[in-house]
């Protein structure tokens, strides 16, 4: 059965979400032979606006190239959540950072909160890896892109010499998602 998934990643400058969006698209289109689209919007930092990266992945033709109602929405800041929560599809998956988003006025059934920045700091000494950890989380929910393809796309994008840390961050994200889903008894 044909699929079309819309993914929206939102956060601040420095969260690496533009690159994560490109990695998702590259993994899908270059390494997994799906069809994909990626677009982005750089928020104006001085106005406190969120960065946004949108990805569409399909195994068939993509008739309409814009993300309107994402199946998966990642919000790494309160600003991003406030701006994009209304776009989430009714039964969509919301992934948030449990410490950065404190006001969840709309908390859909598919909400998953993770201590993404905290784990990045604890495991890697810096919040820099939050984007890659998030990519691991998303890949476990999305399931249509193979982890191998994501790893290949990741390794082609990051500075040489930083492969080990980034792979660890990616795998940490997958593990966090699996542990949470195991705890929730979700298949």
């Amino acid at each position, binding site marked *: 059965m044909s699929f079309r998934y819309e993914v929206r990643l939102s956060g601040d*400058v*420095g*969260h*690496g979400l*533009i*690159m*994560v969006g*490109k990695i998702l*698209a*590259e993994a899908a*289109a*270059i390494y997994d*032979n799906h*069809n994909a*689209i*990626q*677009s982005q*919007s*750089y928020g*104006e*930092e*001085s*106005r406190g606006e969120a960065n946004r990266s949108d990805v569409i992945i399909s195994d068939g*033709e*993509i*008739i*309409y*190239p*814009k993300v309107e109602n994402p199946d998966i929405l990642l919000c790494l800041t309160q600003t991003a959540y406030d701006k994009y929560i209304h776009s989430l599809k009714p039964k969509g998956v919301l992934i948030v950072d449990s410490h950065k988003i404190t006001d969840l006025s709309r908390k859909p059934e598919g909400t998953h909160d993770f201590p993404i920045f905290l784990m990045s700091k604890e495991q890697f000494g*810096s919040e*820099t890896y939050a*984007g*890659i950890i998030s990519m691991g989380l998303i890949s476990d929910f999305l399931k249509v892109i193979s982890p191998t393809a994501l790893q290949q796309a990741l390794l*082609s*994008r*990051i*500075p*040489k*010499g*930083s492969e080990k840390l980034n792979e660890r961050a990616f795998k940490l994200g997958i593990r966090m998602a699996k542990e949470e889903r195991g705890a929730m008894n979700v298949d």
Partner: protein
Amino acid sequence: MSFSPEFSEEWLQYVTPNRRRELLQVLAEISRLYQTYQSPFVLVGACSLLIRGCLKYKAWWDVDLLFESPDEITRFHKLSGAPELQIVPVDFHPIDYGYLQSMQTMWGVKNVWYRVDYIYRDEYYHFHSVSPEKDNMYRIRLNLNSQKYDLWLPVAHPWNIFIDKLLSPRLKFELGVRDGYSIDIRHIFILFSLYRHDPGFWEYISRKSTELTNGTNVKENLRNLLLAKDELGYQSVIVEEKDFQMIDSL
């Protein structure tokens, strides 16, 4: 129409095979518009570096066109379109981001899509229109699967792109938060590594950056970026004392 043999088609191998035809169709249509309407724009960004042979890896490619004015963006958007091409605006007019205006569109060929961004940034069209070469026109006839694609459009010079990216306000934020995943930072390091041994490169940077109002920031931004290379994950990039001497002489 005559074609320049200097540019090669080697760059096409870094476009994933199932998206090559579509990118060539998009670039061919942009070329047609350039030729037919003398639309004043320059191809900038990652795609320009790809065509120039600076980026040699498979990636997700977008097309960025830098226009002379917001009115020219609107005119180009109204004129664009060919029977086999779908154009879907993501924005319906140029959006003001403070330091630049941008209008995002999606160009599709049989539902394979490329993002084509129309950009305006004060001073920058004229900045990119002049380069170390006689002209910056990319003229080539490419063959793919028995189909010919005529490309004829101005492509930004990598040395101008280097300055452009160093002066982007976005870079300041990305450097401030040590964003090692920044695409702009990646390109700057690639260009630095490619050209750092060329004295002509440093002479050009020194002279050319004076054309821009904030051009004096090139020296400080480059110095700060190179000093932070390890924190950004770019330990493998070679930077020597003589590079800092060249920067100091800018």
